[in-house]
């Protein structure tokens, strides 16, 4: 793959498949009103010197293709490219084809900042889809604020942030956590919890919110443990869990540690299908199950906003198009879907504002609705996060989740939750 060059959207992929997918989506979901470029003169829609011509508009894709985070970020890159393909197939944004410049963050935070700056300053991209870890987002944030760029950030994360220059397309912690804990206490009658996490900010913050909520419900947290990223030995903590006999193991383990944890849990005789204890996680998407092995995590519950197995029409078309573009073996996790929303949300904001200017997009963004999202209907909140439903999936042996619960209404994003800090 060669980066840092302009890509016309359809390069290197099966154009027909994409068009078919895009068309299927278009046809089945809504009838787009075709916007023609000549109705929107470049000088009018681009007053800040962004990379917009009469026929094209350039955006940036900024993820890790190399390094340890490449494992996770690949799916996001694929989703963003798919969305761009489909938008172009429908006629682009304000009649202009989207071109993208892809940069590699190399799993290294200063590199992210460096490349973000390059995208904004040298390439003058109209928006950036990118970042995965909180650390990379924190590193680029000052750059986006200084040069007034717009970042579409796909990962579920710890919250505690609300930047005018970021649209958070994944869930923040309270959206993901509170609904899940309510569900497990109401349907499963859980009374005691054991919190486990990898040792960094997202698991720690999430567990903090979880603990407050559990205690608010009058229930008990019987243990809380953190292991360094990349840790591979979990027998001691599994023993502690056996001693404390929690009803729920609430696990936020990430990366390679995940694989070790679930394999060792299974080997220690904790059969998750028996739900004694029940395992609830917010960090294992279908992507992670590939590495863990479906047979090792069968019976666990995951709480997030999207599962590949969702059966609504939007999602069926999305999964079909995704597989046509990237191959049949691929799985789609929560973050991948959230990344897919980025270009669509940006398109909607541009069209609502009638301009590519970042300030106008920012103004236009709150209130934007997307009825075509694979996860269903979403809406941008004033705090730049998405209103979205939260769902609970039950892991099956084949590596997919069966959706067993879904919140009745959209959950309001609350990045600075009162009483949870």
């Amino acid at each position, binding site marked *: 793959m060669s980066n840092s060059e302009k890509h016309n959207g359809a390069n290197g992929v099966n154009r027909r498949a994409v068009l078919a997918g895009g068309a299927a989506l278009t046809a089945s979901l809504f009838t787009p009103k075709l916007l023609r470029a000549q109705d929107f003169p470049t000088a009018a829609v681009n007053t800040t010197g962004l990379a917009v011509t009469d026929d094209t508009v350039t955006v940036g894709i900024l993820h890790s293709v190399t390094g340890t985070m490449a494992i996770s970020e690949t799916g996001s890159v694929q989703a963003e490219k798919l969305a761009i393909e489909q938008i172009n197939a429908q006629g682009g944004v304000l009649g202009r084809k989207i071109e993208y410049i892809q940069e590699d963050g190399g799993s290294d935070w*200063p590199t992210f900042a460096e490349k973000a700056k390059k995208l904004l300053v040298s390439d003058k991209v109209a928006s950036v889809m990118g970042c995965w870890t909180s650390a990379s987002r924190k590193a680029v944030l000052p750059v986006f604020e200084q040069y007034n760029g717009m970042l579409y950030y796909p990962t579920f994360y*710890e919250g505690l942030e609300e930047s005018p220059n970021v649209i958070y397309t994944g869930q923040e912690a309270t959206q993901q956590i509170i609904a899940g804990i309510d569900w497990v206490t109401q349907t499963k009658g859980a009374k005691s919890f054991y919190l486990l996490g990898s040792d*960094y900010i997202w698991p720690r913050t999430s567990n903090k919110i979880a603990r407050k909520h559990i205690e608010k419900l009058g229930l008990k947290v019987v243990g809380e443990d953190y292991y*360094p990223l990349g840790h591979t030995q979990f027998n001691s903590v599994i023993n502690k869990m056996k001693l404390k006999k929690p009803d729920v193991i609430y696990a936020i383990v990430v990366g390679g540690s995940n694989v070790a944890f679930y394999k060792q849990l299974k080997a220690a005789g904790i059969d998750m299908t028996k739900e004694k204890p029940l395992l609830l996680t917010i960090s294992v998407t279908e992507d992670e199950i590939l590495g863990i092995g479906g047979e090792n995590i069968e019976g666990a519950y995951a709480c997030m906003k999207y599962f590949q197995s969702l059966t609504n029409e939007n999602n069926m078309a999305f999964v079909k198009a995704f597989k046509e573009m990237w191959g049949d073996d691929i799985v789609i996790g929560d973050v991948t879907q959230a990344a897919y929303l980025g270009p669509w949300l940006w398109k909607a904001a541009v069209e609502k504002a009638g301009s590519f200017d970042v300030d106008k997009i920012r103004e236009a963004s709150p209130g934007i609705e997307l009825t075509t999202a694979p996860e269903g209907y979403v809406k941008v909140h004033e705090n730049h996060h998405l209103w979205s439903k939260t769902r609970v999936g039950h892991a099956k042996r084949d590596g997919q989740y069966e959706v067993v619960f879904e919140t009745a209404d959209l959950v309001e994003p609350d990045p600075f939750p009162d009483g949870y800090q």
Partner: protein
Amino acid sequence: MTTAPSNRLFTKSEAIGFVILAVIVFAILPLALDTFRLNLFGKYLTYAFVAVGLVLCWGAGGILSLGQGVFFGLGGYCMAMYLKLEASTPENTSIQSTPGIPDFMDWNQLTALPWWWEPFHSFSFTLFAVIAVPVVFSFIIGVAMFRRRVGGVYFAIITQAVAAILTILIIGQQGFTGGVNGITDLRTLKGWDIRTDSAKEILYFVNGIMLFACLLTAQFIRKSKLGRLLIAMRDQEDRVRFSGYDVANFKIFVFCIGAAFAAIGGAMFTLQVGFMSPSFVGIVPSIEMVIFCAVGGRLSILGAVYGALLVNWAKTTFSESFPELWLLGLGALFIAVVMAFPDGLAGVYTDKIAPRIRKLLKRGPPALPAANAQETAAE
């Protein structure tokens, strides 16, 4: 020739080398590059501090530390703590439950600034700490190891473990350190906005001046009797010991100097890049810093600067165009430097290029004095 060999600070060719580097750093790069690229080169130059320290420790003294990232990080963190406190005024942080403390502390339910953060309100204390903290730390490690005659491979592995420990600690104590995200969103230095283009340019020059100060210090050490003792220790440690020197003291000293250089680099890194995170403390960056030094030539302080510039520039360029090939290239570079060019760029220069230049110069006036030939080989 029965007179004593040259004892001047510079031989002629060394002086020329310093001048050329100064021209590159202070004239060519700033003129040729836009602010963005210049800032990148400024970042690369902060690694050169570490590489120069490694030339003293490893090339001259034979002490290979795989934990230089620790000192780079400590220096950088000290600076970042000061900048973060300045950025965390009660007005800026009014949305927090406890305004006036850094944001990550607030997220971690800290309600007051930890006592050991307090002194970092003072800029002069911070400047002191940038050097003192890493030096004290390296002194402790140095005393413990060199007094017990731990050297070579063992020293390398233990410093590596120290880097691992510090990384886990920083990440684990996120309420106090910012955890894996590091200390981010640094804005001003005594009210001066360090994010603007003009600030970046000024910082680049400050960085260059600091680097030359370190280079001159390193050159002075190399040319002093202490410098010759380091080489002597590397080759015949026992002989030095039985000539009445307390070998450990010299190793501790040079290790502390290396740590101080790395720390200055770290502080300049924080200023120019605008944040500090544990990813510069661990094993991988520490080993990469060794390769900067090896590529430049482990015996040449000027080579170390070129090594840091070249490897990092290549990293940026190649990872932009061929992200998949970059790791292969970096790996191959490690192997090539060790197997084919153990003296790095500086070695290639003295063996292959310098003789030709001299030949050329000899043909036409003014000829370089032949006496310098051997001295050139030493640098």
